[in-house]
């Protein structure tokens, strides 16, 4: 598009792009929240992503998957900011506790905090694969594109993450207050049961 057209305002394509981008903001915030230790840092990351995506809009092929494209930008941004810990396989307990504090919302069901703590104990690459496929609604192929790895790698990460998360929740090893083991799993089962019958 020419400079004259640009200076007169946005093109139709820009408008369509922006509309789609704005609709993705809630999803970008949710993904950022799973990567960052606290909600404020997550929103900073999501805002950087929105700006980067907007600046790079010419490189996006309209009609292709903008959600996967923006998630990839967000993920790259996150890891370039904290390259230091990117190969870190396990969050330490302190980081897990920070994550818990960050999401310490009195309205939030306790079981979600337990799930978050369990997630925090997974290796980073397993956690993000499980979140993209299990919560973000991405196909394995899309998740592989976002994480820049092979489809088979994503599949095995998701499968290992699922097994590990279940084991963590059943053993109660994330607990700090001495509550009975497998309480979390029982609550999750009851909760899921209740949710599925409501629908």
């Amino acid at each position, binding site marked *: 598009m020419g400079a004259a057209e640009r200076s007169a305002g946005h093109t139709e394509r820009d408008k369509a792009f922006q509309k789609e981008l704005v609709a993705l903001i809630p999803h970008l915030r*949710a993904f950022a929240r799973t990567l960052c230790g606290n909600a404020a840092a997550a*929103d900073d990351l999501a805002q950087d992503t929105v700006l980067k995506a907007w600046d790079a809009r010419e490189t996006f092929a309209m009609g292709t998957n903008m959600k996967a494209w923006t998630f990839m930008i967000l993920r790259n941004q996150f890891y370039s900011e904290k390259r230091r810990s990117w190969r870190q396989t396990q969050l330490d307990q302190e980081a897990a506790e920070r994550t818990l504090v960050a999401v310490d919302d009195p309205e939030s069901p306790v079981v979600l905090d337990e799930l978050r703590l369990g997630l925090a104990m997974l290796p980073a690459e397993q956690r993000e694969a499980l979140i993209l496929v299990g919560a973000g609604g991405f196909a394995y192929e899309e998740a592989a594109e976002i994480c820049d790895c092979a489809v088979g790698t994503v599949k095995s990460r998701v499968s290992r993450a699922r097994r590990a998360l279940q084991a963590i929740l059943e053993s109660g090893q994330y607990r700090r207050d001495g509550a009975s083991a497998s309480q979390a799993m029982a609550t999750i089962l009851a*909760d899921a049961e209740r949710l599925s019958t409501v629908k």
Partner: protein
Amino acid sequence: MMIDRSVKRPRNSANLDETRLRQQAIGVKLRQMFDEVVNEPVPDEFLDILRRADDRETGNG
């Protein structure tokens, strides 16, 4: 020693069912955790940065 499959198999498949049930339950909670944030109102700053980007590009025209 003979392996009694008639006893062993049902128990394994019951374990598999239980695992599947638990995995489904974890999946439900994972989506709930994610959707909780998706459903939050978007802070104004998000639209502000797009507005500022607009001004930056079109304001100098």
